[in-house]
């Protein structure tokens, strides 16, 4: 079921080989097992899989926030002052003590970008995610959806060549989510960063990704890698097409067993 490891090329932003991750020294949680992946520069990859299968862990390892227990990860970006990967976290990634502007400039501040430069860059991205007018607001004064948009603006504003997003739209209601998905694709089409996005929503993965990595229940393995055939730009209307419904059904069936394996549900 696992992909046979391919050799990485210079075009690959991330190359993952035989990666395993075990949490808790005594070996209690085997989160990831023998993961092999090649992610091209400028590609948009979506990861789906049942809850607890190690999606966040994999993303963290790609972003150098966690070390693999064994195996190998190559990250092929030149070293600049900004971090190689900017993150959008599943939850609680924005700093409650900074207002919107300060949160969005945070990455550049840590990279010693001059104040003037980072503020003007930040204002751009704040406008892009539709938060203009809220620069001085603190996160707790905003809705969950607005908070998540701060995190997205911050990730883009940092200027990193890759973007790792962990269910960035999970906290949004369905309608806002669709608007944000369209927004996200638009932003990505402008900048063409290497994006890895974890999601629970198959529709979202089909709407956004070039390829979809389907993971198995814990210990997480790569169950399937699916290339998404739809051209860009894509829009929500695409969901009505029979091809979309078909692919969705396929992935859903592949996932269904895994979800049931991962939860004690009759």
């Amino acid at each position, binding site marked *: 079921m696992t992909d046979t490891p391919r050799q990485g090329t210079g075009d690959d932003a991330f190359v993952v080989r035989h990666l395993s991750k075990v949490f808790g020294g005594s070996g209690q949680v085997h989160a990831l097992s023998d993961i092999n992946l090649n992610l091209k520069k400028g590609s948009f990859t979506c990861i789906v899989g049942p809850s607890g299968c190690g999606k966040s862990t994999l993303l963290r390892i790609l972003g150098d926030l966690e070390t693999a227990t064994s195996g190998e990860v190559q990250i092929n970006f030149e070293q600049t002052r900004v971090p190689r*990967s900017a993150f959008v976290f599943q939850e609680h*990634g924005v*700093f409650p*003590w900074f207002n919107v502007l300060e949160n969005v400039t945070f990455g550049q*501040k*840590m990279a010693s970008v001059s104040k003037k430069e980072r503020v003007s860059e930040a204002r751009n991205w704040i406008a892009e995610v539709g938060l203009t007018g809220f620069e001085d607001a603190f996160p*707790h004064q905003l809705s969950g959806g607005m908070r998540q948009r701060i995190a997205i603006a911050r990730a883009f504003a940092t200027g990193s060549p890759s973007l790792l997003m962990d269910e960035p739209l999970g906290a949004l209601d369905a309608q806002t989510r669709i608007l944000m998905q369209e927004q996200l694709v638009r932003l990505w089409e402008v900048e063409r960063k290497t994006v890895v996005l974890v999601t629970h929503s198959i529709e979202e993965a089909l709407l956004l990704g070039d390829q979809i990595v389907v993971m198995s229940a814990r210990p997480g393995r790569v169950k399937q890698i699916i290339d998404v055939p739809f051209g860009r730009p894509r829009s929500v209307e695409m969901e009505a097409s029979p091809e979309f419904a078909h692919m969705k059904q396929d992935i859903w069936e592949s996932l269904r067993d895994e979800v049931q394996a991962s939860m004690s549900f009759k």
Partner: protein
Amino acid sequence: MTQTQSVAVRATELDQAIDLEFKREQRLKARDLGLAILTPIVLLALWELAAAVGVLDARLFSPPSAIAERGAEMLADGSLAVHIWATVGRLAAGFIAGSILGVFAGLVMGVVRPIRAALSPTFTALYALPKIAILPLLLLIFGLTETPKILAVAISVFFVVQINTLAGIMQIDARILEAARAYKATGPRLFLNVLLPAAAPAIMTGLRVAAGMSVIVVTAVEFVASNNGLGYLIWNSWQLFQPATMFVGLIVVSVIGALVTGLIILLERVLLPWRHSNSPKKKEMKK
């Protein structure tokens, strides 16, 4: 009745209902404030009455009127101010020194695991050490200066603040730390932009507890070893049997305690705006 009419009637009904609700809220707030002011007044009046009819021995429990008179006298001749400044000076010096050191120690212990492991249990035991009991030792070491008195206050404050700061650091949401690491926050930048603000609410709680405690400690210290300050005033006036003066001291001390606590709360609001932004702003935004 036409459709438009009934809509108009309903709009008026709604307005009336809103108005009633608003008035009720105002009434409740006014009542709360009235009650808050009433309680001490009633207590003082009862005290005055009890002293007047002899339920309380007025020679020992000076009635509030006599205390007020004595307080005015002491204010006029400046003697109260001398004691207040002496106490406030020690309080401020000890509190500031103790809290700065406490925050620093807590942060360092929070970040450096071996230091935390080495000092944490010992500090917990030292925290419970009664501060007036070690005052003689401080006097031995530092002589009869202000140092031991300020130090006694500083030590009390230090442990409370250190314990709270450490707890604050240890309780920082792992996800916040991860976000900081993801954006490559390190060294002093990590410290200033993430650790300190994240631990700030816990530090503030520590300061609030420490404030109450420092007032108690400074009074106790002045009780035992001082020639001025409100603690001395209370002790001395009792020794000299001047109960009205003693009550003036007691009341001033508790007012200072309340003020210091209030000040810390104010400081918290200023320093941690993200925890106290008012809801009107929120509502406005939601519009």
